[in-house]
């Protein structure tokens, strides 16, 4: 075989292998998604959303407590995480633009985004749960907001940096102080980008389980009291899936389906906003 053919064959084999790798990877990933969808849809009943859990081993019941708890914890985490993240990103992109401190915080935030979330849970346990002697929804929300802040901070920084500097100069020229320029000009220019970052950060924390295990813990009863232990969908999935009862497993699939759908919807919405805003 001459050299030319050998190179062609080699190229074909290598590319076929990488195509095969891609097919195998995508196969498993779609398998997971379809499995969750099929098992989840079967588990969806009105009672899943409206009833509280039945006693262990008894058929029926629902996960109302977990849905309510999850919403409250995620919402509170968003209320803490988004303002702090947006303001922090503002500092990096505006007041400290181009300075060493801005660079350092930006890099540390990137690291913080990937730090093991269970360590964050252990941290919050030590500062908010043990001193108060009980698990609480607040502690869970705080743990999630620690994970959320660096995510929001980094996207805000990136989005504000995209706003042209000349726009700020135009506002300065009218005599506006910097904080007014930021709030009335820069934020408006970057609003959709920041909104996308917020959506994606909510999607990120909504699926977190590990930081909630030792903070908001779990609660088999309906509770809207953030200062006591609180159920969340993710911790309930962990408990129910590891449990011995068939009805628990079905409900865990149902809960997984809802949470996956919620997160995918947020992610797709975020991507569509970016596309709509920045492709034109």
């Amino acid at each position, binding site marked *: 075989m001459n050299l030319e053919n050998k*190179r062609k064959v*080699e*190229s*074909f084999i*290598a*590319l076929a*292998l*990488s195509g095969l*790798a*891609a097919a*195998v*990877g995508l196969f*498993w*990933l779609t*398998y*997971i*998604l379809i499995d*969750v969808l099929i098992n989840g849809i079967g588990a969806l009943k009105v009672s899943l959303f409206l009833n509280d859990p039945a006693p262990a081993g008894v058929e029926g019941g629902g996960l109302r407590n977990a849905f309510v708890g999850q919403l409250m914890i995620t919402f509170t985490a968003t209320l803490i995480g988004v303002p*702090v993240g*947006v*303001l*922090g*990103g503002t*500092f990096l992109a505006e*007041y*400290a633009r181009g300075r060493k401190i801005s660079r350092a915080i930006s890099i540390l935030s990137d*690291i913080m985004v*990937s*730090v*093991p979330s*269970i*360590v964050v849970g*252990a*941290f919050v346990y*030590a*500062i908010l749960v043990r001193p108060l002697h009980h698990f609480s929804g607040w502690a869970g929300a705080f743990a999630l907001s620690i994970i959320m*802040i*660096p995510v929001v901070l980094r996207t805000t920084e990136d989005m504000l940096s995209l706003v042209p500097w000349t726009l700020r100069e135009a506002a300065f020229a009218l005599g506006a*102080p*910097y*904080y007014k320029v*930021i709030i009335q000009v820069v934020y408006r220019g970057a609003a959709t980008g920041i909104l996308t970052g917020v959506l994606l950060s909510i999607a*990120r924390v*909504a*699926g*977190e*389980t*590990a930081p909630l*295990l030792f903070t908001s813990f779990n609660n088999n009863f309906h509770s809207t009291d953030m200062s006591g232990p609180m159920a969340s969908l*993710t911790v309930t*999935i*962990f408990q129910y*899936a590891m449990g011995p009862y068939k009805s628990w497993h079905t409900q865990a699939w149902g809960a*997984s389906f809802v949470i*996956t759908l919620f*997160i*995918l919807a947020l*992610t*797709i919405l975020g*991507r569509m906003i970016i596309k709509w805003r920045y492709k034109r």
Partner: protein
Amino acid sequence: MAIYSQKKSCDLFFSLLTAAASLTVIIFIIGILVVLIKESSLALGKFGLVNFLASTVWNPVTGIFGAATTIYGTFVTTALALVFAIPTAIGIAVFVTEIAPNFLKSPIGIAIELLAAIPSIIYGMWGLFTLAPIMSKYVEPALQKTFGKLPFISTLFEGTPLGIDLLTASVILGIMIIPFTASIARDSFNLTPAVVKESAYAIGATQWEVVKNVVLPYSKLGVFGGVALSLGRALGETMAVAFVLGNNHKIATSLFDAASTITVSLANEFTEADSAIYLSSLYYLALVLFVMSFIILAISKFFLLKAERKYSR
């Protein structure tokens, strides 16, 4: 700077507010480190550093704890996961950037990014209900039949395949980090200037030669950073492995043994720790994990920044 000449108090207030908000990140990192060291000081004093890291004893009854088993489990699952994930992820990236027809590129890219958003607990639960039975019924007996009689590597495939073991956990962890690794690798590949690739084609290179000799060398910094980032993520992943690893504190020599990782021990034992030394040892584990992943993530960030600087020129 013009900013600071604006001596208005409102402006000062707003700048301080934003500065405080951005400092929270540093406060959290330092706070986590300080709290973990403080909480683990009891175990740190009793077992020391080397002794703790090297001891394979984990006995809540006698109150003697060592980290070797969990660190071993963490490294084995992570290493195996990377072995499964990296070739697949790079295959996906090559496929998306070089081979796929244009109408497929964007859908596959979006699909990968959506899959990266699925929370790890979904992967873990799927592993328990769907993958573990498949592994114990088909894959693991087949592996045992094929490799179980070969010398040297036969110990890797000993024992009853139950599906709750190192291999299953590593496969799930691998599947979980594929989308993440693939999307970073794809972004790095995309940074290769079209002109350079076209020059290679113009002198008669085949498609694979372009990938091997132009795209990969050009993007190796970025890919390396991405792999390190996946490594850091996999080390600290809890829920994907917690379902199928069995939390068994021993140095498993077979892939079909139940084992434990730092994260799995924390998730299973933290709320059950009944003595001060037990809880303190768990905090010690958390400290080890935090320091390890922080270092690896910092290394990955270093490479990604270097890559970025190289391309932005």
